[in-house]
Structure formats: C-alpha cells, structure tokens
C-alpha cells in the first residue's frame, strides 16, 4: 500500500493533494474564483462550502483574506488561477505574507499557499500568458515551487500546505493533462528546496523546471543519439534554490545550459547563471547559455506564440555551442 501508485494527471495530482490535506487537517481551506472550474469540483462532494470559498473578483482582497486567515489558525490555499493575475495580489504577498513574521519579531507565522497557473502556449495572448516566477524570487521570506510532473506536484503541494511559511506554487498548464504514476501514500512529501536529477549525464548540465523540463529531456535524447550525455536537473523549487545539486552537476560536466519559459531578462535562468558564475566558476569550461522566451510579449497568433518558447531543438542547439 505505502509503495503503491495510481495514474493521475498533473492537475488531478494537485486536486488529490488538496483532498488529502483537507482530510488530514480541518484548518486547510481552498479559496479562489470559480474553483470548481479549475479542477476542484470533486472536492465539493466531500467538503462544505465553508472550506471551499468561491471568491468575488477581488484578487488583492481575497489573497489578503488568506493571509489574515493564516495568521489566525487556518492553513489557506489561495488559488489565483491564472498567474497573470498575480500582480494584482502582489502587495499582500510581498508586503504582508512575506514580511509579517519578520516585522513582528517572529510573533506570527503565515502558513499560506498561493497557487497560480502559468497559462502560456494556449492562445490567450499577452494578458493571460505570463510566467512571472522571477518577479517573486527577489522577495525574502517566500518559498517558490514549480513542479514538472504529477508526483512532484502532489508531493510539493502537500509539503507547501504543511509548511509554516508562505509558499507560492506555480502550476504549468502545458503539463496539466500529463499523466504518470503517483504515490498514493498520504504522507508522500517532496521536500522543499531539493532539485531532482531527472536524467544523469556527464557532458553537459541542463537545468530546467516546470514546463521547460520536457523540452530539456527531449533535447537530451536528441543529443544522446550523437553520443552527448546531458544531465537534466529539475529544479522543482525555485526559491530557495538547491545550489548544491546544480553546482555538483556542473563540477562534473563543466558546461551549463539553463532552460526557462520566462522572459529572458531577469529570468530564473539569470539567477542560476549568476550563482554558478560565482560559486561554480572554477568548474566552468564554457559560457553559460540561457534558453528562454525572448523579452517580448506573448502574441495571440498560435504559430508566433509557439515559436517564442524553448523546444528540444533550441535546447540541443544551445548545448552544441558548448562542445
């Protein structure tokens, strides 16, 4: 039983994590707009509306309500649905959730999870398609998760709910439907702050996360055909970053390519590159390449939109420039 698994999609795994944690702890609640539309409808069969709050269109307000509830005995999960709406709520996340414990000299704790889905490659255009992880990385006091597969999504979300600090949980809609075997163990947790080597290799390190992991792995297969063995590190937690795993891999390969679906300038990839250019410089044999979305907005036209994001060919090409 403990080691048995069940096939779930990424989104189903997220819903299961809700179900298990809400069963385990009655202080866990879910808040958001039209939560039933975003996968949670099955939860209504089991939990009452008191713990499943459909909110008015008030992102800043209900995120702050989640913070206030977290300060007073609940463990809220606030679903902002589409990550492009995160900006509206950012003040409560940055100035309140991330700072209240500090500003009160440790008197308070903020066990809050904020979910947001990066809604790109979906023909919804510039106001829906942002991947704003980097905007939050500069904020002390937050933890930021961005899983690439169903079991990590489930295990990380459960860890987030049990964590006493505010956690941002980025879902990737390009992965929502992706199915895999997921542990059924209700205490299957994925630790916050640990990367996962999704593929071992010796010639180059490819660091990726969330929706950039599939193209990274596909590129590794392409390269393997030419005898190039890429190690693919799935970051999983963006903040705090697992520097040890990244630096360890680069120490072995001497080459680093970072794949990130966010805009190039000020990206997650930039932070990883900065860390390695300082602490891993001695092991670097080649420049650090970032394969990212360019610093332009996301267009409605589907072909143009697709052309902006990293794919296996772009990743493989970047690797080849280092050989």
């Amino acid at each position, binding site marked *: 039983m403990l080691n048995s698994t069940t096939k779930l999609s990424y989104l189903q795994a997220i819903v299961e994590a809700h179900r298990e944690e809400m069963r385990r702890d009655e202080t866990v609640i879910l808040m958001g707009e*039209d939560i039933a539309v975003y996968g949670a409808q099955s939860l209504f069969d089991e939990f009452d509306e008191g713990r499943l709050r*459909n909110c008015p269109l008030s992102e800043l307000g209900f995120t702050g309500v989640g913070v206030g509830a977290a300060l007073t005995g609940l463990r809220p999960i606030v679903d902002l649905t589409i990550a492009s709406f995160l900006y*509206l709520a950012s003040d409560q996340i940055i100035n309140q959730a991330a700072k209240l414990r500090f500003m009160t000299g440790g008197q308070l704790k903020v066990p809050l999870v904020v979910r947001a889905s990066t809604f790109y490659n979906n*023909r919804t*255009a510039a106001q829906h398609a942002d991947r704003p992880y980097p905007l939050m990385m500069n904020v002390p006091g937050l933890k930021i998760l961005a899983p690439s597969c169903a079991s990590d999504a489930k295990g990380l979300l459960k860890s987030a709910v049990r964590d006493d600090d505010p956690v941002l949980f980025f879902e990737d809609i390009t992965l929502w439907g992706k199915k895999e075997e997921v542990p059924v163990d209700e205490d299957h947790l994925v630790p916050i702050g640990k990367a996962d080597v999704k593929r071992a290799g010796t010639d180059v390190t490819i660091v990726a996360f969330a929706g950039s992991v599939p193209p990274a792995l596909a590129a590794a297969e392409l390269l393997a055909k030419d005898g190039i063995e890429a190690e693919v590190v799935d970051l999983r937690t963006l903040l705090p970053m697992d520097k040890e795993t990244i630096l360890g891999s680069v120490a072995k390969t001497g080459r680093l390519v970072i794949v990130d679906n966010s805009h190039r300038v000020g990206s997650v990839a930039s932070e990883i590159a900065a860390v390695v250019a300082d602490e891993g410089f001695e092991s670097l044999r080649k420049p650090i390449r*970032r394969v990212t979305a360019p610093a332009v907005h996301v267009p409605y*036209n589907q072909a*143009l939109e697709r052309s902006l994001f990293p794919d296996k060919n772009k990743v493989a090409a970047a690797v080849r420039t280092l050989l």
Partner: protein
Amino acid sequence: MPLDRAAGLEGYSRMLRIRKFEEAIIAHHPVGHLSIGHEGAIVGACMALRDDDYVTGTHRSHGHPIGKGADLRPLMAEIFGKRTGICKGLGGSMHLTDTSLGLIGESAIVGGGIPLATGAGLSIQVRRTDQVSLCFFGDGAANEGTFHESLNMAAVWKLPVIYFCENNGYAVTTSVEKSHGQPDVARRADGYGMPGIIVDGQDIEAVHAATAEAVARARAGKGPTLIEAKTYRFDEHSNRLAIPIKYREEEEVAHWRAARDPITLYRDVLAARGLRAELDAVEAAVAKMVEEAVQFAKDSPEPEMQDLIDSMFSNPVHFPADAGIA
C-alpha cells in the same frame, strides 16, 4: 424617448452585426467570450456617443467595437489571428480594439479597463475638449479594487466618464447573489456621491436614453455617472472553457433567449413603426458584411515575427538586438 428612424435602423443593424458576427465565430473559429444577449446594452450605450468619444471594454470584447460602428473585416481577421487583424493577430478575441473609433483597450484583466477610461476622462478635462469616456465592465468587475478607486477619483475630479456595467448576473459560474453584498451595482454610486442608474439592458432605446443623459451631464462638466444595465449572457462564459458544474437553471436561460432577446424585441418595435421593408434590407446587408468579413479573414496572411517586433516599442532601444529572439 425613441430613436429616430435612421438611428433606430442603425441601432438594429449594429445589434444584428454583433449577433451575426459571433454566430460566424461559432461556425468558423470558435474562440472566446460572446456578447450574444448583451447587444441592446452595448449598442444602446454606443449610439449615445460620438466617434471621437473614448471607450474601454473587457475580455468580452467583440460587441464594443461593433457597437461603436467598426468595420467587421479587421475584427474577424483578428479573431482568426491574421496579420490584417485590427491588432495584427497579436491581441486576439479578448482585445478587439479599434482605436480609429476611440477604443483604447479591451482589457482581459477584469476591472483593468476602469482606470484607463478614467484616465481618458482626465485627459479630456486637462486638454479641455468636449469628449466623454465610456467604460464597459461587468458585474464581476465591480468587485475589483479598480472599480472603487476609479469611481471615487472620477467623482472627486468631476471627470466626463460614464461607467457602464453590463450586469449579466454572473461572473463565469459565480452569481451576483453569491459575490456582491447586495445585488445592485448602481447602488454603490451613492458612496462616491455619484448618480447611479439601473436600466433594462434588453431595451436598446431605454439604454440609449439613460446613456445620452449621462453623456450630456459629462459634456456639461457635471461629472461621472454609473449606469447598470441588467442583461444576460445567452451562451456559456467562453466557448473555450469547459464548465463542469451547473450554476444557472436551464429555464432561466431559455426564458431570456425566448422572451428577452434585445434583437427580436427591437425588431418588433421597429416593425410596429412600419419599417418591415427597411428591416429586411438591414438583415440582408448585415449578412453580406459578415460573409465578407469571414472571407477576408480566411484570405489574409499570418503575422510574422517582424510584426511582433514592430509592435513592442514606440522608441526601441537595444531592441530587438538584446531581446533574445531566436
């Protein structure tokens, strides 16, 4: 008071253009949020405006430019994501913005257009023109902080803005009853010292009359008005979003479609005014317009990376060189 003959027929034509344009979308390129059911509210409001008045809209963006009188071809081409689209295929279904008619942005961030319309009002006041600014938004948007902050500023500064709420009773699956402390958006106006008016959104002439009065107030420097048009969304929230739950009664939908359709209601009014022949002519003309728009969209080329690059900056610096475009 009723619209005169010509205006009445134009109003009927614009409502029908919205309806047929969106039926064509369903048939040829099913994307986005439809305004079917809202035509009376949208066109009634737009008919009270001049071409040089400003308008902001929402994710439910098809009706507003059509209501303002826009050419259907670039709008349909935009739906198809084509280079000849009103936004070069970069904006898409939620952003049909035709600036030649004073539209300054259809915001897919709910509530995001309310400050923009208010800013247009400020611009009018500072530049001392006699334009007005009309802001379309939904019942759900009325719960965003931008609604509160914007209406208060417009009231303090007496800006020439008409806040026009298309209250269709729902925000996706969430009813007004479950998301508003009390159900009338217009009742919030008093808190800002602003008049708030409720009007039947299915009656184009009632909407036009209420809006015309608010426009007159605004042009006279008397400040903003909040108008709430009670209307209804005949179709699902978006034909790209699957709705797994039942949030409104079939009978309710059926009733509005059968008894409260703003187009059939107004057709009867105009027919009773002896305009049967003219109505037939309008219907033929609209059918042709929509057909041409679809053909135009189909025949148009896709946008290219250069179009995207050209649209990013007015004054590019180190761009596109440093943007990392492959």
